[in-house]
C-alpha cells in the first residue's frame, strides 16, 4: 500500500545574495506561502561567485507551490531580473502529502 501523495512544483532560484530581501518581498506579493533559502557559491555566465564577501555570494531559494503559481513567479522573475543579474532558475515536480499547505 503506497502513500497517497499529490504533485506540486518546486521552483528553485539561484542568484546574487544582494537580491535576497527584494526577491522575498516579490514572492510575498505574488502569493507564495513559504520558501526556503540557503547560502551558495558558483560559476556561470557572469563569472565566478566565490562567496568570499557579500558582493560575491549567492543564495538558493526554493519554493514549493502549485504549478500555475510557480510558472507565474518564474515569469515575473525572468521579466524583472534575468537581464541584469547572475541568476539561474528551474522547475521540478515534487510529491507532497499535505496538499492544503502549498
Amino acid at each position: 500500500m503506497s502513500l497517497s501523495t499529490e504533485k506540486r512544483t518546486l521552483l528553485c532560484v539561484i542568484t546574487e545574495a544582494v537580491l535576497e530581501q527584494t526577491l522575498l518581498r516579490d514572492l510575498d506579493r505574488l502569493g507564495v506561502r513559504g520558501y526556503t533559502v540557503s547560502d551558495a557559491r558558483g560559476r556561470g555566465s557572469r563569472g565566478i561567485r566565490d562567496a568570499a564577501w557579500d558582493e560575491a555570494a549567492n543564495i538558493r531559494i526554493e519554493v514549493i507551490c502549485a504549478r500555475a503559481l510557480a510558472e507565474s513567479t518564474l515569469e515575473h522573475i525572468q521579466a524583472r531580473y534575468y537581464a541584469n543579474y547572475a541568476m539561474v532558475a528551474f522547475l521540478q515536480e515534487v510529491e507532497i502529502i499535505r496538499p492544503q499547505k502549498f
Partner: protein
Amino acid sequence: MIDIVVLFFLFGLVAGLARSELKLPAALYDSLSVFLLLAIGLKGGQGLATAELGPLLPQLGAVILLGILQTLIAFGLLRSIVKLGRADAASTAAHYGSVSVATFAVGVNWLMTRSIEFEPQMAIFLAVMEIPAIMVGIVLARGIGRDTDWGLLAHEAFLGKGVTLLLGGMIIGWIAGPEGLAPIKGLFFDLFKGALALFLLEMGLIVSHQAGELRKRGFVIIAFGLLMPLLSALLGLACGLALDLSIGGLTLLATLAASASYIAVPAAMRLAVPEANPALSLSFVLGVTFPFNILAGIPFYHWLALQLTGNPS
C-alpha cells in the same frame, strides 16, 4: 616606513595574485567589519562628548555638498572621457562620491601612529558622506521620479549596516564618554589596529581578484582610478580649509573625499541601477583607487595639508 596594517594588505594582495589557497572565513571578515565600524563610531562619539557641537550642522552640510560635487564631476569625466554608458557612469560615480570605511580606518591609523590629532566629528562625516552620492547616482542613471522606490532606498541608505553601526557607536560613545567606555576599551580600542590588519589581509585577497578585470580594460581604468582620488582629495582639502580643520582633520577629509565606497554603494546600486556592471565599478574602486589611497594617497594628502596650511614640516 610603511605602516604595519598596510603590510598585511600587501601580503593578502601578493598571496591572492600568487593564487595561494589562503582564505579567511567569511564570518571573520564580517565580524571584523562590524568591529571596525563600531570602534570608529565609539571613538568619534567619545570625542564629541567633550567637543562643541555648535559648528557641526554647517559642517555636515558642507561635506554633503562635497560628496554630491564629487559624484557629479566623476559622472562627467566617466561619460565624456572614459566613454562609459549612462548607467555604468552613474553607478561608478556614486562609488566615488561616497566613502570607504576601510580607507578611513587606515587614515585614522596612520595619524594615530604619528600622534597627529584630528577632530572627533570625522566619524560623523564618514557616516554622512556614505549616503548622498547614492541618491545622486540614481538620479543620474534614471532621472527623477522614474520607477525608483525611494522609500526603500532611503531605508537602505539610513538603515544599512554600515551607517547603523557608525551612528549607533557614535551615540553610545557620546552618551558614555571616555569614562563610560573604559571597561570596553580593551576590546574596541586596544585591538583596533590588529583587527584592521586582519581586515586588510582579506581586502588584499579581494583586491587581487580584480586583476582579471583590470587586465581586460587596463589603461583607462588605472588613469581614472588614480586621477579621481587626487582631484577629490583637493576638493576635500579645500572644503577642510573652509571648515578650518586641523592638519589631521584636513588629511582625513581629503582621505574621505579621495576614498571610494566598495560596500554600501555597490549593494545599493546593484538594486537601484541593475543594468550597471558591478565588476566594472569595482575594478576602478578596488583595483586602483583603494590600493593607491592606502599605499601612497594618505601620506600625500597629509603632505598637501601641511603645504596648504603653511606648515611644511
